[in-house]
């Protein structure tokens, strides 16, 4: 359950920061999230099917989309939003 808990917390923190603290454009956030999920569904599943990434499903909720664990989507989404938040902080600092 650690993977599930960590990924949910990471995703929540990133969404909280982007939407509530930084008040980033929600429509763009939804769009980049969709793009992120779309590419993860294609590439992450492909990488997993090739055996490049091997998940221990006993440590996940057991929900797969279609062969990667749901937690992996949360990980990817957190990476996407964290990058956007970091980029906005860096570019706004001395703009």
């Amino acid at each position, binding site marked *: 359950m650690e993977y599930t808990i960590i990924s949910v917390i990471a995703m929540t923190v990133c969404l909280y920061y982007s939407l509530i603290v930084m008040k980033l454009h929600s429509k*763009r956030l939804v769009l980049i999230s969709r793009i992120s999920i779309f590419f993860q569904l294609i590439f992450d599943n492909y990488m997993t099917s090739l055996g490049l990434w091997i998940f*221990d499903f006993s440590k996940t909720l057991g929900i797969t989309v279609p062969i990667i664990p749901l937690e992996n989507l949360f990980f990817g989404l957190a990476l996407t939003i964290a990058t956007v938040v970091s980029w906005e902080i860096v570019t706004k600092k001395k703009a």
Partner: protein
Amino acid sequence: MENFYYIIYLLVVLFSAFLIKAVGRIEINYSKALGAIVPVFVIFLLWDIAATELGHWEFGLDKMLGLVVVNQPIEEIAFFLVIPFFHIVVWEALKKFVGRI
């Protein structure tokens, strides 16, 4: 050939980022991009190292280049530089073409 799949994937993503950047005439300050990527790189790499250590996932090292730092294949380390850069380009494209704040 299969040892290069991960590298090819990263190159495809990097090429796509530069293609979007060129077609959309998106300007990216590379030093700022690096400044934004480094903290994300560190945090997610630490997560990856911990998760690999805890056995949440592992890597098919026989299907990669085989270079490992700590417990991370070199491709996975590059992943955390390439993917955030792609996201920055896409985000700037969205800023340019999807509404204004």
